[in-house]
């Protein structure tokens, strides 16, 4: 199997696992996110805390032991200093998140669950991402990625 095919299968499976958990926890429902952000209910904060609480120490341990990943070589985590764009972009993201009541991955699950208006959210997301990419590529000739996005690796293409 070529690395590219392996990546596609891994991507599909982990995407499915991710989408499954999001839907199981009702994160695709506008009400769940709205109640969280209205500080009426803290389950989603606890959920995120639980996810970080499990993955942070495990990744730290694996990194310290120089763990080898299956397709990407030695495990390497990203730790970037804070830039203005992280904070400003984050604030814009938060405003949009509150208005549209869903974030990028749950929006896909929302549509898959039958909620038709989610198509508006998904199209809007593509437009917003594209606007920013158009702006950065005009300014620098390349798009940027941060620690929250997939890093570019030649083998992964």
């Amino acid at each position, binding site marked *: 199997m070529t690395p590219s095919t392996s990546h596609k299968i891994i991507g599909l499976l982990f995407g499915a696992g991710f989408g499954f958990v999001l839907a199981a926890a009702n994160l695709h429902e506008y009400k769940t996110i709205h109640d969280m952000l209205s500080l009426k209910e803290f389950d989603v904060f606890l959920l995120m805390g639980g996810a970080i609480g499990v993955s942070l120490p495990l990744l730290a341990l694996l990194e310290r032991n120089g763990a080898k990943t299956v397709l990407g070589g030695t495990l390497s985590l990203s730790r970037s200093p804070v830039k203005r764009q992280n904070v400003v972009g984050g604030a814009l993201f938060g405003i949009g998140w509150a208005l549209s009541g869903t974030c990028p991955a749950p929006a896909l699950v929302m549509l898959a669950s039958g909620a038709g208006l989610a198509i508006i959210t998904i199209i809007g997301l593509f437009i*917003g991402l594209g606007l920013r990419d158009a702006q950065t590529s005009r300014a620098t000739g390349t798009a940027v990625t941060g620690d929250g996005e997939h890093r570019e690796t030649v083998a992964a293409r």
Partner: protein
Amino acid sequence: MISAVLPDRLPWYLAGPALGLLVVGFFMFTNQPLGATGAYVETAKTVRRVPGAVSWRAFYFVGIALGGLAAVLLKEDGFVARKGYDVLLDANDMNLSLPVASAVIFVGAIVMGYGARMAGGCTSGHGICGTAQRSPASWAATISFMSAAVVTTFFVNQF
């Protein structure tokens, strides 16, 4: 509905650690964070056949929807074709008309996409994967979007 195998809502103390394990598992296969913003970007490039598009992320994008559908089908209510966004549309709640609600959602999504790309990630990328990598940039972005979202929701709730 296939059958009600899943509860109406999986509690956070199961869903949270499950997401955490998926993040670690994805790192151990691909040495990459499991963020959704990058998946959108590369899916758009793959569909438009832009040279250098990372096509496996389009599989990840599709996987999210398929996995979500599978979970929904295992719940009692199952797949229900509907508008969604009940809080915005319900007469007892915000009672927005469909065009107004659609405009709010659309503008919100554009701002969200622009902001996610500027920040270098979203709730999954920065909020879970970046924080789990102990990246200062991700912690800053996460604190920023959480605060902005709570403040925005406070204002939305005044209507």
